[in-house]
């Protein structure tokens, strides 16, 4: 999808003025946050497991090349094929080639952020394929031609009336008098329609939450079962995975799995965690005849070994998104691309450039809630700060901001000058406030006074008063 991250402020303004979105976003704090807290409370080892998980991923990243050697051997031994996509265009080309070689007409898809990242659907559709998203949330936004607004709950910004409207508009043969005014009816309608697609698909494409080097296995974690129908019924199963999905052993991935569902939705474990290894075996009555794994770089090797290395530990649970007060205010679309919230603020500039995505790491108070809940102990605020440093080095920040902070720092580095400047400022601001104790409008501080009064200095400065007291 074409990024609109550069328009974050405009996107945010629209989001803040959207009452339906604000109602929908109100569910996030009460739902996901409470559920995660409950799940954590039910597992005494939760926080210790986060340390172990961090160590597992750190070890894996430090040996990533060798784990891929082992992984590829295992996949090939099981009858599967591994493809390597350096860029988004490479991945699109590889997937289309596989579909064409198969003579595919209908493609079903499980939820894959990688597919969004490389804009796969449009590419396949342009080549004449019918592409059907099967995750219910993804299906709904596909009908509406919208991007996902959350990596776990892509349709979280919609209410059921909007879903009903989409089904009525796009489901051929749906009787007008059929009731679709509640969630069970809507889910039932989607189940019925998508069932036909599952059964008629030639190729099924899924993402991968993890790749396991020990056994050459790809893992998907779902609640709906759509990923499983996508990967079991068609002749061909294609797995899309970015390079950081690798984990060494079953025991390693198990530790991380103990954290994933609990962090994402507060479940002990999701309904379906599926380990796939190669195509069907001789004698298997079902399963795909061909199994392809497409590994994507698309800017991630450029993060390895840099100050953004820790971001490669992300397991896409969405906990940071669920806890972020900025996300609660504006929702996912405002971030303008595939990844939103704190993880989006760190990852997006790495993948599409800081010039396009500069607002994202700046729109943060560094409150630290994201890092507090991250199962992989990723220091998200620290990496947002690193993006700000990169921007500062490249003079990307607005001139007024740079100038203002530069003056502040220059004065603060000279204590005597600072004393005089602050004494003057205290007096000046108190004059403006005229005994009211606050100011309703301040030049150069329009951003502040637009929404709140500005408390005036109480008196002369502390250092002036202290000097008097000490010497008086």
């Amino acid at each position, binding site marked *: 999808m074409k990024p609109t991250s550069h328009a974050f402020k405009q996107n945010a303004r629209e989001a*803040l003025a959207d009452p339906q979105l604000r109602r929908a976003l109100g569910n996030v704090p009460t739902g996901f946050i409470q559920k995660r807290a409950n799940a954590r409370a039910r597992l005494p080892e939760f926080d210790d497991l986060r340390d172990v998980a961090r160590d597992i991923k750190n070890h894996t990243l430090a040996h990533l090349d060798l784990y891929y050697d082992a992984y590829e051997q295992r996949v090939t031994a099981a009858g599967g094929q591994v493809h390597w996509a350096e860029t988004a265009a490479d991945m699109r080309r590889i997937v289309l080639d596989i579909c064409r070689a198969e003579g595919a007409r209908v493609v079903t898809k499980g939820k894959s952020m990688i597919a969004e990242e490389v804009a796969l659907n449009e590419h396949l559709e342009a080549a004449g394929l019918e592409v059907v998203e099967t995750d219910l949330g993804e299906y709904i936004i596909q009908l509406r031609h919208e991007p996902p607004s959350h990596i776990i709950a892509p349709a979280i910004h919609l209410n059921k009336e909007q879903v009903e409207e989409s089904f009525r508009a796009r489901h051929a043969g749906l009787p007008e008098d059929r009731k679709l005014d509640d969630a069970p009816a809507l889910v039932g309608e989607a189940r019925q329609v998508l069932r036909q697609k599952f059964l008629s698909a030639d190729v099924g494409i899924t993402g991968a939450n993890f790749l396991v080097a020990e056994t050459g296995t790809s893992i998907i974690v779902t609640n709906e079962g759509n990923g499983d129908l996508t990967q079991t019924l068609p002749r061909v199963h294609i797995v899309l995975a970015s390079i950081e999905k690798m984990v060494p052993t079953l025991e390693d991935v198990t530790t991380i799995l103990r954290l994933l569902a609990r962090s994402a939705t507060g479940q002990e474990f999701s309904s379906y965690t599926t380990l796939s290894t190669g195509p069907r075996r001789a004698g298997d009555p079902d399963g795909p005849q061909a199994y392809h794994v497409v590994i994507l770089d698309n800017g991630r090797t450029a993060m390895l070994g840099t100050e953004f290395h820790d971001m490669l530990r992300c397991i896409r649970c969405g906990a940071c998104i669920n806890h972020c007060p900025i996300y609660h205010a504006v929702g996912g679309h405002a971030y303008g691309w595939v990844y939103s919230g704190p993880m989006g603020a760190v990852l997006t500039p790495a993948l599409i450039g800081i010039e396009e995505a500069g607002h994202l790491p700046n729109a943060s108070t560094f*409150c630290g809630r994201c890092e507090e809940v991250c199962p992989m102990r990723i220091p998200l605020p620290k990496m947002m700060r690193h993006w700000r440093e990169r921007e500062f080095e490249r003079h990307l920040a607005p001139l007024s901001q740079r100038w203002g*902070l530069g003056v502040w720092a220059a004065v603060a580095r000279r204590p005597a000058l600072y004393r005089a400047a602050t004494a003057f400022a205290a007096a000046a601001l108190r004059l403006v406030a005229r005994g009211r104790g606050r100011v309703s409008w301040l030049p150069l501080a329009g951003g502040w006074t637009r929404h709140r009064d500005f408390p005036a200095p109480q008196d002369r400065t502390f250092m002036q008063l202290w000097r008097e007291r000490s010497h008086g």
Partner: protein
Amino acid sequence: MKTQKTTVALFVTCLVDLFRPSVGFAAIRLLEDAGCRVEVPDAQTCCGQPAYNSGDRADARELARQTIAAFEPYDWIVAPSGSCAGMLRKHYPLLFADDPAMRDRAEAVAARTWELVSFLVDVLGVERVPQTVNLHATYHDSCSGLRELGIREQPRRLLSTINGLKLTELADADVCCGFGGTFCVKYPDISNDMLEKKTAAIAATGADVLLAGDLGCLMNMAGKLKRQGSPVRAWHVAEVLAGMTDDPAIGEGT
């Protein structure tokens, strides 16, 4: 008999210095009541956090150098601010990761730096404050103090020993108020959304008074409360603990 008083260096913080000296004096009173001698190093200005969080590492390092030099002669460094204390404790060593000599000095200062209420409770073992004031208050947990320094129980414990003070827990006390330094002026509309959620929660407590440990957060919330015409008054927790609530609250005139 030798009387050994603990000498504490007060890191005033730039906001307290310019906007509300009474917080500094409240801190001094609390420290002196707990048996300390307080000095105020002359060469302090700003901890450098605005530069640091804006990506200006060079200026942040210079201000850190200056602060470290001013404070390293002291055994104890106390600031009435979780974000400033957090800057010294957690971030100064990181600023000099590539300069071993400076890093050692930064780590030494970091280890001796404390936020005020945490210093009183966790280091000095203060268990109560001898104040009486009739107030219905609620308490906001500033993000840095909470998440970088683990300050949560300490202010509540001391507040509970004040006669006449009723404390109602603030729903989502641990959610950011929307200040975030320059964030509130760079993204004012998002900041305002966070701020309105915060003031709604404050109103829902029925409290007359808002307390917190960071003046930046307090100015942000007090400014909003005043704009809304709310009767809620805001003080720094140090002022209430030190019994200094006779003077105007934040954003109030003389």
